[in-house]
Every structure is written in structure tokens, then in C-alpha cells.
């Protein structure tokens, strides 16, 4: 039997009805049409489904949607402000941090969760933050360079 789920996603409040077995990822992708978070390993390993739930990076493939009831979710679709990309998105483009792009939404959300809590992380802390996100193309150095550029204030967020 479907259950009611109240969820704020990218600032917008939703009232949904979901199967108890639905994962947070299922609801975001299949019910809300937000396909940024990727369905990939499905085993809590690769990080491509990473979203920010109540300020924390989590694997949306490994949380029941109902466990997020009343919560606030930020997905990669919520990063840009209208047509203005988020500083991290701009930096990822400029520093060649995207090749096939499959890991990118997860990488961005892990990086965002880190910077929200700690705007001046060390390189080691950046590595730890994206440790749970697998990338098989560009490698991690260009991603670390992009995050570093944002930390160094090369990109200012639009107010």
C-alpha cells in the first residue's frame, strides 16, 4: 500500500505517494523526473546516486524514500540558479573534470556537501569527501583542481 511522503526537493515542497520499498533514488528519478542522480551500482558502492539529504551527502540508492520523510533533498538539478551555473559546476567545466559525465552529479554533490560544512578544506579532506564516488575517466586530480579553484575564490556565487 502506498504511503504519503513529504519531501522538499531543490527548495520545492512535494506531497507524494510512494511504495514503501521505493528508494529515494526511485522517487527522485521516476516520480519527480530528476535523473541527475544516477542509478548505477545499486549496491552502495559507486556514489553516482549521491544527493544531499538534510545537509549530508548520502547514497540515494541505499535509503528508503520514506526514511527521508519530512526532509530536504538537494540534487544536481538544484545547484544552478536559473541559467547561472553553481561555482562548482563552472569549475568542473573549466578544469576538465568531466569526461563521460556519469559520475559528475555525484561528485558535485559530494563536493558541495563538503564546502557547505567546511569552506576551506585541505586537499586530504577533499579526497575524503569524494572517496565514495568512483570516476573511471578523468581521474580525480582534475576534480580536486576544480574544487580547489572554488575554495580559492576563483568562482563567485551569484547572489
Amino acid at each position, binding site marked *: *500500500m502506498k*504511503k504519503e511522503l513529504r519531501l522538499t526537493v531543490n527548495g520545492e515542497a512535494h506531497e507524494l505517494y510512494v*511504495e*514503501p*520499498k521505493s*528508494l529515494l533514488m526511485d522517487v527522485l528519478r521516476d516520480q519527480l523526473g530528476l535523473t541527475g542522480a544516477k542509478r548505477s551500482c*545499486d*549496491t*552502495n558502492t559507486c*556514489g553516482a546516486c*549521491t544527493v544531499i*539529504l538534510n545537509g*549530508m*551527502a*548520502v*547514497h540515494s540508492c*541505499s*535509503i*528508503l524514500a*520514506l*526514511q527521508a*520523510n519530512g526532509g530536504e533533498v538537494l540534487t544536481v538539478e538544484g545547484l544552478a540558479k536559473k541559467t547561472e551555473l553553481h561555482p562548482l559546476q563552472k569549475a568542473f567545466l573549466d578544469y576538465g573534470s568531466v569526461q563521460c559525465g556519469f559520475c559528475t552529479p555525484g561528485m558535485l554533490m*559530494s563536493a558541495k556537501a563538503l564546502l557547505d560544512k567546511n569552506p576551506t578544506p585541505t586537499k586530504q579532506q577533499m579526497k*575524503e*569527501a569524494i*572517496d*565514495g564516488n568512483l570516476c573511471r575517466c578523468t581521474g580525480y586530480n582534475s576534480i580536486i583542481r576544480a574544487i580547489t579553484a572554488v575554495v580559492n575564490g576563483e568562482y563567485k556565487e551569484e547572489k
Partner: protein
Amino acid sequence: MIRDFEYFAPKTLEEALSLLDKYRETCKVIAGGQSLLKLMRAGLITPQYLIDIKGMSELDYIKSEGKNGLKIGALTTHRAIEESPMIQNGFSTLVEMERILAFIQIRNWGTIGGNLCHADPAQDPAPVLMALNAKLRASSLKGERTIAIEDFFTDYLKTALEPNELLTEIQVPAVPPHTGTAYTKLNIIENDLAIVGVAVSITLSSSTDLCQDVRIALGASAPTPIRAKRAEGVLRGKKITDDLLTEAGEKASAEAEPLSDINASAEYRRQLVKILVKRMGKEALTRAKQA
């Protein structure tokens, strides 16, 4: 594909215990679900009823009880333990263990109680909590009981909890003076499950350098996390030397009952136990001397 189930999200412990009492073997408790959902997705666990306690804030706490040690609510997340100043001061081995337990996304959502109840012998908290001589509190509608952590694990993925019982609290006694504790695991991918994990705690007597007490716990070395009591016997009451640590490693290796799986053969695991017990024994000893 996860099989359908009926879902409950009790708000209080009492409500959760009533549901457990009603549904017993037909239900399963989910906390963070970081291990459970994998098994449900693989169809290995197909509960008829799922009791979701993740939102039950009354079991999410870390309390310092001074001389009586530390009390950690079962629903405290790994990340909260890792970042707790109370745990950093005096129980730093727990912090070291949490930092290598899994990826940050899993540590953010997974809970210490859920981890213990999953009872995977390759998980990190159990050996460390065994070395720290922790006790677990279980509650049911009938009341409460305390279980020593080494009696909690009964078989692979099995615990001593009755079908109507819920793990509610982890109690870690204050660390005695002149005690050093260390934990490490070997794995191929950083933050992955242990191929073998070893925790050692050594307490030196205050007047001499003799080993007053020692606890050695092994992960991924048997169907459950275990204490290597014969290895402990090698060190207890003695002045610990390199040779004694080698002997303790050999004894622990003989006590282990490792399984062969995709990650390593039983033979390889035995060899690792030998080496890691010696290495962690040395580290714990160094820390005990500094404490």
C-alpha cells in the same frame, strides 16, 4: 528487486517494541539500512513487515558518564561518533575505526547499532568494542538486559537478540590508566570491508611495565567477530617483548576459524591475523606507555 512489505515508522521506543512483540520473526528492523537494503535487494531477506526506527531520536545520543564511561545510543550515526569531541577525548580508537569504516555517504546515514545487529564479521565496530570491553543494552516489552559484546554474536549474520528485542545502547567503560588501544584492517580498497581486522587493548600495571590486562579481538577471522583469548594469555602478566608478540600472533592465528571467500583464502587470513596481531600489539603497547 526488493519484495513488498508493510512499513511502520514508530516514533517512540515503546511503540517500536510493541510492533516487534507483535510481528517477531515476520518483521525486520531497519535503522540506516546501509547493509540491510543490499540483502533485501538481493532477495536474501524478505520481511513481511519492516519497522523503520531511523527517525527515533531518543536512541540518537552520545553521553559521557565520567568514571562509568560512555553511552552511545544505538541510532547514533558513524559520522556523529567520528566527530564527537567526547569520543575523540579518551576513545580515539573508535574515531580511527569510524574514519575507515566506509565511504562518507554511508557513515552519514548508517548507525552503530544497525552495524552491530547486521553481525557481519568483517565489520569494524565489533572488534574495537570488544577490545574496549563494551556492553550492549537490549530492550523488549518485558524489560531490559545487558549483553557483553562478545556474547552478542552467535553465528554469521546472527545475534543473541530475541525476536522481540531491540538493541538500544552501547556502553563503553572508562579506559583504565596506562591503557593503549589500536585497530587496523587490511583491505584492497580503502574504506571497504576488512579482509582481516584486528583490535588490541593493553593495560600496563602502574608500578612495573608488566601487562596487567589485554584484550585481542579479530574481525573477518571467523563466522563471528571473536576474542583471541589464548593469544591474550601469552601476554597477560608478562613484560611484553617482540618475541611474546610474535607468539601471541601465532596463537591468535591458530584460534581463528577464517572462511575462504572472494576476497581472500582462509590460509591467507590466518597469515594476516599473525602479522596484524603483532603489529597492533606493538602499537597498543606504545600507546599504553604514553598514556
